[in-house]
């Protein structure tokens, strides 16, 4: 099953590259949202591979907290831009 992580890492490089390259703040936010989901799914995959419950809990936490913080950040950015 370990082969899954290789393609996942390669795909993860795309949003990371995009967040460096694009100057527009909303495009950056999109890229970060994508990074947040993808890393948490990778954490889940690793937790299943190692059969370790605790890593999986961390993955689920990152999944919800990461997205929630991005929502807050988006609202703040909207206010600042007005």
């Amino acid at each position, binding site marked *: 099953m370990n082969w899954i992580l290789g*393609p996942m890492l390669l795909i993860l490089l*795309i949003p990371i590259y995009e967040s460096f390259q694009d100057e527009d703040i909303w*495009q950056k936010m999109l890229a970060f949202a994508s990074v947040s989901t*993808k890393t948490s*799914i990778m954490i*889940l995959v690793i937790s299943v591979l190692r059969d370790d*419950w605790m890593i*999986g809990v961390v993955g689920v936490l990152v999944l919800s907290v990461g*997205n929630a913080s991005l929502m807050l950040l988006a609202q703040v950015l909207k206010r600042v831009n007005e």
Partner: protein
Amino acid sequence: MIDQLINIVSYGCIVVGLVFWLWGTWPLVGPRSVLYKLHTLSVADTLGSVAIVVGLLLKIPSEWPLLIMALIALAIWNTILGYVLAYCSTEEPND
């Protein structure tokens, strides 16, 4: 026999998820608008990730409470994040 079938289905789900990831993430680099990229990202990050987690669920059913929790969190948070980003990145219409 059934074990093998479940194995094949779970690998199928994971591969489909990876294809969705690749297809939906690739347009991020392009010059399209934020909203267009949101559409493709909802293919990749929501549907692709759901497929991967379902594949894991079929492989290791003993961890089902955590993985179901992950599925629910994924579907709801990602979708609502898409809505919030769409809302915040567009201007208020004047009419």
